[in-house]
């Protein structure tokens, strides 16, 4: 299984744990990730509100960089994934826009035909392409007894409905069940984490984060599993600020789903970026998994 790989900026710095764990897990599962040569920032959510054409062209450049021999591109970050998928769709649905984007790309000697590359989120690649059988066969350290709350957020499952159920996604739930974890079926798993709202208005953003942590707590969660650097950052890095604002005492580790997957596949913790999270996951994981 071979995929073009778009890591995105977050994975270089704040989501370094995601980066190392994605690569480690891919190696074990036999998924070959070919990183795009000279990829650029996807512009996140902000660029679209500034200038649509430039925003699209910046994203389309990455699609154009996918080698002709490959037709699938995977991204671990939810925002990068959605941007890449969205621009591919926009170019197909609006040939005028597609033409303008290709004019812009031509300045760099590039060209992209919409539909040439299928954009996949990493969760789809692991859940659907690798699949239950192959994953179960490689589990050496089941996550038995660990209560994992999968958190999907918005951008992987909406607005496009073909990845999972857009209102109540289940693919990460299934993955963790294959790994032997106790999956927390809590009601807010696809509610918004606030995204970049922390930079604009903390009270609003923190209230959104509080709701997620509160529900996870009520459902007796050991660890929250994320598939997006933004979601992870919000719930992890701002957890103590949320506690301060609402007089709560949340202490819930927030990890990337690939870190827990790697653990189950027998990858050593040090190779999965453990310890980079702010609310430390070590104690609860060691306590729960040692007990079995």
């Amino acid at each position, binding site marked *: 299984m071979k995929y073009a790989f778009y890591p995105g900026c977050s994975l270089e710095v704040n989501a370094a744990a995601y980066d190392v764990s994605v690569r480690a897990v891919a190696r074990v599962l036999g998924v070959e990730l070919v990183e795009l040569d000279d990829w650029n920032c996807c512009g996140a959510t902000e660029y679209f509100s500034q200038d649509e054409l430039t925003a699209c062209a910046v994203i389309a450049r990455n699609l154009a960089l996918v080698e002709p021999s490959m037709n699938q591109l995977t991204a671990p970050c939810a925002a990068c994934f959605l941007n890449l998928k969205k621009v591919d769709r926009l170019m197909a649905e609006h040939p005028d826009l597609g033409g303008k984007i290709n004019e812009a790309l031509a300045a760099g000697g590039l060209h992209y035909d919409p539909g040439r590359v299928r954009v996949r989120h990493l969760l789809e690649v692991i859940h659907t392409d690798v699949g239950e059988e192959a994953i179960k066969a490689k589990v050496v350290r089941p996550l038995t007894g660990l209560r994992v709350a999968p958190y999907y957020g918005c951008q992987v499952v909406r607005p496009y409905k073909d990845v999972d*159920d857009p*209102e*109540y996604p*289940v693919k990460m739930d299934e993955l963790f069940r294959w790994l032997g974890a106790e999956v927390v*079926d*809590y*009601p*807010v798993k696809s509610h918004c984490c606030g995204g970049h709202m922390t930079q604009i208005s903390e009270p609003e953003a923190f209230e959104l984060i509080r*709701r997620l942590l*509160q*529900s996870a707590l*009520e459902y007796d969660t050991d660890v929250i599993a994320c598939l997006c650097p933004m979601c992870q950052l919000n719930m992890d890095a701002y957890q103590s600020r949320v506690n301060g604002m609402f007089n709560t005492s949340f202490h819930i580790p927030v990890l990337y789903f690939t870190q827990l997957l790697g653990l189950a596949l027998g990858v050593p913790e040090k190779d999965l970026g453990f310890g980079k999270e702010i609310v430390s996951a070590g104690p609860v994981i060691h306590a729960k998994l040692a007990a079995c």
Partner: protein
Amino acid sequence: MAERVGVYVCHCGSNIAGMVDCEAVARWAKENVSDVAVSRDYKFMCSSLGQAMIEEDIRKEGLTRVVVAACSPHLHEKTFRRACSNAGLNPYLMQMCNIREHVSWVAQERDPATEKAKSLISAAVARVKRQEPLEPMKVGVNPRTLVVGGGIAGLQATLELADAGYPVVLVERSPSIGGHMAQFDKTFPTLDCSACILTPKMSEAYQHENVTLYSYAELEEVSGSVGAFKVRIRKRARSVREDLCTGCGACIEKCPRKVVDNDFEVGLGYRKAIYMPFPQAVPKIPVIDRENCTWFQRGKCRVCEKMCQPGAIDYDQQDEIIELDVGNIILATGWKLFDCRKIPQYGYGRLANVFTNMEFERLCNAAGPTSGKIVLRDGKTEPRSVAIVHCVGSRDKNHNEHCSAVCCMAALKFGHLVLEKTGAEVYSFYIDMRTNQKMYEEFYCRLLEEGMHFIRGRVAEITDAARMPGEEGKLIIQCEDTLLGRQRRIPVDMVILMGALEPQADAKELGLKCGISCSMAGWYTERHPKLDPVATMTDGVFVAGACQGAKDIPAAVAQGAAAAARVMGMITKGTVEIEPVVASIDEEGCSGCRICNNMCPYNAIEYDAGRNVSRVITALCKGCGTCVAACPAGVITGSHFNNEQIGAEIEGILWDARAAAGRGAAAAV
């Protein structure tokens, strides 16, 4: 002698003339198509004036063939055939040419549409000249009728026919007749007890001298055609002999195996491994659920056998196949409930106190699992607030686009029952209130008076994630109140989801057996949505009740009675005319290879061993043409669709290609 063909081009108001230049087409036919003696266009050819025009031309112009270019033959073939008959022309010498559905309604440009109309008329003229006079066959109508489905629609049809003195065979899939109505507590808007009005009909049907009931049975196969169908019914093994069982219930009482009843009690109650679906079941004969019976699963027990005084328990009973002749078939197979788990954000199956409408019917029912007490899933706590969510799986592009027609009224009924029995606050979350039948709007007003709360907006989610004080431990309904123009969160103890009415899962399969089609959604297609709502495109097959589309009890009953009336009309007339479009075998050329015998889907070809030839049983032949194509010797002819006629039609449709070929383009072919 050359034929004299009359061509009649209908404008159909502007339906055809809006896209096709009818006048030009008529003129063109007269000038360019050979043997056309008369060609006219007219505003409405189906009007009495239009028909009179054709009749007059036949008489005065000596027409020997007629082509009517108008709508689909489904609509007016009979009309124009009758006109020809009136003027002394054999009706099978008239050919219809569909320039409405096949041309004007689907074309976007006038010129190509007009050209296409010309081609079709050219084809029809070429064909009609080779048509032969035929005489329709008359077949006697067997007065016995098969009714499939013993819900309220099927029961109504059964009783109407039986009371009129005609024999009826009623086939019901489950162990008892009664259908969904037997599960309900009250019926809207009168709030009369559902069982009280239903059970008399059930026992009447069972005891009626003209009714034969096969319960726990399914229709397996249908052959033949109107007036003379042959049907095969599989009567599943009950493991209880109906002729011996007295319905005393001792077997049920002593059966040691208790299982969750996912059918009648929709998972809220229990039944034994030997059971009757409900106390008033008809027939009052139990059935052994072999999947759960200790004897069938582990080879031990036989308690029911010991308890049965008349010795009616029969563990070795096999399915029984019953073959019958019937004249007509009424399908009244009903509906199934939408699986509310398909909308996971509403929490059904995950949040304990989210119920479906059918669960709530059982909860309210005095004969139900809680003896009619409205309580939460714990079986004891009375709710202090209840939310009723409308349109769950209905009016939703992700699931069913249709309106389920009964839910608004059922929701009002539920609201009334909750208010009456518990005094809880009741909130209805609706998109539009649809209460447009007799006394329905009045019932809505009554509930407004009684204090039920109405919030207009589709529910976004039902969650147990409390956000604000007062929400802890509750189910919170998140919804945009579109009248207030703001988001609201209503915490409640209990939620009732008004799940959609959907076609039965095997509706298409059964429809196929009977030769009728379904809409995309799976509802049976009626012959005409307004003017012929219980007949189907297959003569002798009728539909009634919710299998034709979601509807409430009064509408289902009306259709049941209507279907019965249609059947009675056929029986009273005594005979039906059958299209003489059948196959015939030239026995001189038949080698007796019998290939056609097995190909015929209607078993209409018999083999005469003495003479070593095959022969078509005309009464059974549907004129499908399969044998015509299959015969290796080419000695089977399909009347009205013979090779010469079809060849001429193709040649006719290609009139312009031949002209082009004449100019030298033939080399390319």
